[in-house]
């Protein structure tokens, strides 16, 4: 007797199978889940159930986009998470929740782009080594970033308003110059967000 399996169950099973077979996909899945979970918990603790619910939407969009092979969904999802995290910051959610959430979103976005690049490249020499090195550098950068973001607000410097403004503007200008330099020296490749 033929066994009937519903299409949705088959798709879920397929997604789990793909995730189990691909460490990069599994890592992305974990990062997205962690980011959404942290944001849902953080907003829920402050009785903002609607925003908490909205935090699940980018994760669903990401899952759908990944399943359907949409290339640019990760950039949009990352931007959406950054917006929600900024909203959380504005509403007074603790940085202890927001910094890990932002780092998770950053990791998911990075791994999405990297996986797409590997897929588009076709033949990859020493794939395992390359993935290991990428994950290693990402772990260091993400760890440092999360630590600095978490520890940053606890560092207090007493500055006058003018000084703060000057420093802020300097930071904006410096980053602007760095970005301009990066865009000038690099040419757009396949590895896009």
């Amino acid at each position: 007797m033929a066994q009937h399996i519903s299409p949705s169950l088959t798709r879920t099973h397929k997604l789990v199978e793909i995730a189990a077979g691909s460490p990069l996909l599994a890592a992305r899945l974990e990062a997205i889940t962690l980011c959404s979970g942290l944001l849902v918990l953080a907003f829920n603790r402050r009785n903002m159930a609607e925003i908490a619910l909205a935090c699940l939407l980018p994760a669903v969009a990401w899952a759908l986009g990944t399943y359907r092979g949409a290339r640019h969904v990760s950039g949009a999802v990352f931007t959406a998470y950054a917006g929600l995290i900024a909203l959380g910051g504005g509403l007074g959610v603790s940085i202890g929740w927001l910094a890990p959430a932002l780092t998770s979103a950053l990791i998911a976005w990075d791994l999405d782009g990297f996986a797409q690049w590997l897929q588009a490249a076709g033949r990859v020499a020493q794939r395992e080594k390359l993935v290991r090195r990428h994950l290693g550098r990402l772990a260091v950068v993400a760890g440092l970033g999360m630590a600095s973001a978490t520890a940053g607000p606890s560092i207090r410097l007493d500055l006058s308003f003018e000084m703060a403004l000057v420093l802020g503007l300097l930071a904006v200008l410096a980053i602007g110059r760095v970005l301009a330099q990066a865009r000038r020296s690099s040419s757009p490749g396949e590895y896009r967000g």
Partner: protein
Amino acid sequence: MSRVLLLGLLIYALMLLGLATFQGELLALALPLTLYLGAGLLFGPDSLQLEAERNISPQRITQDKPINVRLRVTNRGGHQEIAFIQDPLPEGLEIVAGANSLLTELPPGGELELNYTLIGLRGLYQFNALQAHASDLLGVHQHRQTVPSPGEAFVLPNTPRLKRVSLRSWGTRIYTGSIPARRGGPGVEFFGVRNYQPGDPLRWINWKASARQGDNYFSNEFEQERITDVHLVLDARKRSNPASPQGTREGNTQGSLFESSVQACAALAQALLRDGNRVGLLIYGRFLDWTYPGYGKVQQERILRALARARAGESMVFDRLEYLPTRLLPIRSQMILISPLVNDDLPILIRLRARGYRLMLVSPDPVRFVARNLRRSADENLGLRVATLERSLMLKRLVHAGLQVIDWDVSSTLEQAVLLLLKRPAPPLLVPQPWPSI
């Protein structure tokens, strides 16, 4: 959107929000992104300095045979954490083994090799350069280089073998060949009887004629066989070469009637050159592609290469056969036109014949070619019948005008089509005399 731009916008947004709302937390949230961007720029690749050497083997091949491509890339610059090398393929080629791209780490002085096998349809394929991207591990900072690595491969048309093409030309050259020259001399076929001349072999003496005359001896003469100039004219006009809905890619004989014309042209050139004739080729379509007449295998290669490059196309100038450059083709020479023909070609061909060209037409049948791809409703059947009648009438008029016509249904082989007409020499035709001046 590029990764750098996205990160930059997010960092800006968080910083401006933090400054605007006096919230240090928002400024702190920009730190992970800034660190990520900084790491990408810090470990970014040096400028790319790659050299490439390409080896294509064989460079000349017939359709559906494999071409091996080997690319050796050497890094003359600094360390590249990730280098992505891709060799873009010319359209019409297809990879059957190996890969034309590789993602790898490339140390200074490091080498990598790309090996892959291609098959392709008829054409000249030029490889110009390979594309290289270098990036840091996070993919933030990227460099791109186009590395010149020229190479070319000829995929020649398939050439069906014709056993013998017997022509009867009005103008032959002095060298011995296989075309009856309508001159007495050494040969095989009987030509006539003349007075015995000292030095004639005894077996040439026509004893019956000598006995009838009594006091004179007569010798048999044989028809000399010489080579001739043959000009192949390939009609590459799009309007006369219908394509089927299945596709019009070059080399696909099922998709375009032009491919059958190309194969016929290649087969005729091969057979005529094998017999020692001097053969030239004119491709008449988008422009005039003229291969000057020549002998032997080198000429065969030239013609095959010209045919490999041939594409059906449109041109306002060469829309009709009227502009066939007859100055390139001497009067009384043998011309073989390979064309499906359109209705307005008829008067032009008759005019060419009247000017003294010995014309042979090899015409792949466009009506039957198109009919094979139709669903055949009653209306279409009627249309096909009308088209068939029109075509047969046109061909009959050409035969009456003195052209040798081969009506070729491309579902059969060219050998079958030419068997009846070309397996033995055609009967001699009178050389047209110029009109007497009044």
